[in-house]
């Protein structure tokens, strides 16, 4: 068998993948590479850590959700497979999961009275979406100094570096270096992509990396009390909420990887059989 062809192809693809990965490099200055933090869901066999997702959801709910929406998420998602409140007992209908029901019921959502047609408030059900903190993007921007807090539903897929990027932003706030002019509603973060050239008054060859982010440092140590007794350091909260957002961005990741392993095993066996068949058919043909 001619492995050389396969190898050539594989290396070609690897080169292309690298080219693609390198593509979103920034024009100038750039940001620091995200911190090297390990998550349980990384790698081809990685899975989400349910306890971590529960803690992460708590951080989202108590801190992030004050400003950030998660428009694509419904309460029922919390109880689905590989989610924070997944319980195999409610496999057939995660809507019946009591945790999920209780969480949903803590929220009030808008509805229309089916008889009078008047707008009413009612308790949320698992089928309802997470309520947004603001009625629309304009209101969100107006309440936050002109910069609307982005929706977090797919944030880990929408930023290069994924969960590590989110973690790095949340833990990356530092005092701006001397010579950097920080305007109102601006916060320096070396992990946030931007171009600080115009705000920099120091050496022009050494513009600091990073950018100005409108969000002030959102998390501090001890801000969220974890129900499982985990020590609530800044890093812990940041890591847990990053994991939660990574899960929300790609809730089928575990199922995807597990399917992938089965598919790869099948294809490898199939390839072996076909190769044997190929050798037998071509036996005796000089070519």
């Amino acid at each position, binding site marked *: 068998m*001619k492995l*050389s*062809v*396969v190898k050539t*192809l*594989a290396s*070609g*693809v690897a*080169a*292309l*993948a690298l*080219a*693609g*990965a*390198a*593509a*979103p*490099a*920034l*024009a100038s200055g750039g940001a620091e590479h995200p911190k090297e933090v390990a998550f349980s869901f990384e790698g*081809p066999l990685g899975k989400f850590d349910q306890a971590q997702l529960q803690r992460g959801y708590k951080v989202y709910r108590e801190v992030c959700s004050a400003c950030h929406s998660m*428009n*694509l998420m419904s309460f029922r*998602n919390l109880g689905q497979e590989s989610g924070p409140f997944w319980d195999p007992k409610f496999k057939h209908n995660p809507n019946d999961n009591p945790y999920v029901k209780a969480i949903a019921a803590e929220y009030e959502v808008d509805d229309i009275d089916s008889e009078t047609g008047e707008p009413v408030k009612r308790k949320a059900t698992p089928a309802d979406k997470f309520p947004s903190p603001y009625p629309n993007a304009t209101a969100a921007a107006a309440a936050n100094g002109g910069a609307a807090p*982005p*929706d977090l*539903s*797919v944030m880990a*897929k*929408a*930023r*290069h570096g994924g969960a590590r990027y989110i973690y790095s932003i949340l833990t990356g706030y530092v005092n701006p270096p001397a010579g950097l002019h920080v305007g109102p509603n601006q916060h320096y973060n070396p992990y946030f*992509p931007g171009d600080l050239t115009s705000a920099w008054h120091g050496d022009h060859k050494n513009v600091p990396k990073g950018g100005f982010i409108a969000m002030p440092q959102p998390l501090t140590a001890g801000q969220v009390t974890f129900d499982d007794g985990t020590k609530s350091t800044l890093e812990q909260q940041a890591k847990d909420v990053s994991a939660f957002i990574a899960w929300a*961005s790609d*809730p*089928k990741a575990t*199922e*995807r*990887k597990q*399917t*992938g*392993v089965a*598919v*790869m095993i099948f*294809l*490898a066996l*199939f*390839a072996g059989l*076909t*190769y044997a*068949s*190929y*050798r037998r*058919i*071509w*036996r005796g*043909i*000089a*070519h």
Partner: protein
Amino acid sequence: MSEHESTYVPKTGFERWLDTRLPIIRFAADYATIPTPKNLNYWWTFGGILALCLVIQIVTGIVLVMHYTPNADLAFASVEHIMRDVRHGWMIRYIHSNGASMFFLAVYIHMLRGLYYGSYKAPREMIWILGVVLFLLMMATAFLGYVLPWGQMSFHGAVVITNLIGSIPIVGESITTWLWGGFAVDNPTLNRFFSLHYLLPFVIAGVVVLHLWALHAAGQNNPVGILIPQEQRSRDTVPFHPYYTVKDGFAIILFLMLFAVFVFFNPNALGHADNYIPANPLVTPAHIVPEWYLLPFYAMLRAVPDKFMGVLVMFGSIGLLFVLPWLDTSKVRSMRYRPAMRWFFFIFVLVAFMLGWCGAKSPDDQLIHGITTFRLFDGDLNSYLWLSRLLTLYYFSFFLIIMPWVGLRETPLPVPESISSPVLSGHGSVPTGAVADAEKKG
């Protein structure tokens, strides 16, 4: 091979009845037993791989349409709905989006194979020309499809590409407005792109039929590049089935393994993070680049300082392929026997890769970091801009100068009379390109 005689004999009464009314079994049987050169190497399996790619894209695409909503306000959420709520939706969508990349990977290998072994030369010009048509249709389909998720890259990619047309003098602006159905890329644009994205794959399938028809009229090329003499037919060919069905099948499985690695373990590696941000006409992403398979052409576009000229160069780089059969002056098809041209070919492949690399970079970025050389016209020599220009120059010279010139000047190696009796001298010295030689077993 074209005058392959039918060997099909209807066995049952029904087959005889059908054969005089709709000889479809005869057609399939004749197709399966087509005498095929016995020395086709693995580079020849990409035709079958491409056929599979087209089927996969059409099938998954039809399924995705069942859940997708072509509306500027709902498209993004409907794609995420597919990924989250639809049963196996994540798999179907990731197969479709990575399938586009796999399709292009296969088509590039297929085209380079044709280029190396001279498959475009007489009597196969029509196969090649139809192939270029297919390539253009694929690019159009891929671009239209990339717009549909209505993320930031979708939207601004559509803006940039449609604005290219605006560079056409006099009528450009009217055509752009007509394409958009408004004054900017917006909901009407999304709707028509969706319609065309659904239509074009079937046009591709139609042209594929013509491509195969032309192939079987002219006969398969082979790594040696000779036409098989009539009297050598029985020694030099094997029936397509089972010999090449099993070989193509094996190659397809290997290809599917690569495909599966992307779909299941790194589904977003070939895409851009920005396309998971819903389209916002008011903010352009910091770094807008097309998908990897269009990067070489994008680099050529940006290499030219004039907008309209850039568009001409970009389309010219593909348009050139239509006249390729008449640019090559060599009498020898396979570059196995063309010692000089072979090296120009390898450089061409490298240039194509490097153009892709340049397309992903900002033109003004320094090639070697921290060194300023001297400014030539509009940019420093040490920049991706000037590298792109150099590479673009080679790309065009390869077809317009090297190919006609080397064909006339080069002394080819002795070419075998037939596949079964290769000329030994010169054959053993063939390097990497002719991997088929390693296949001396079986």
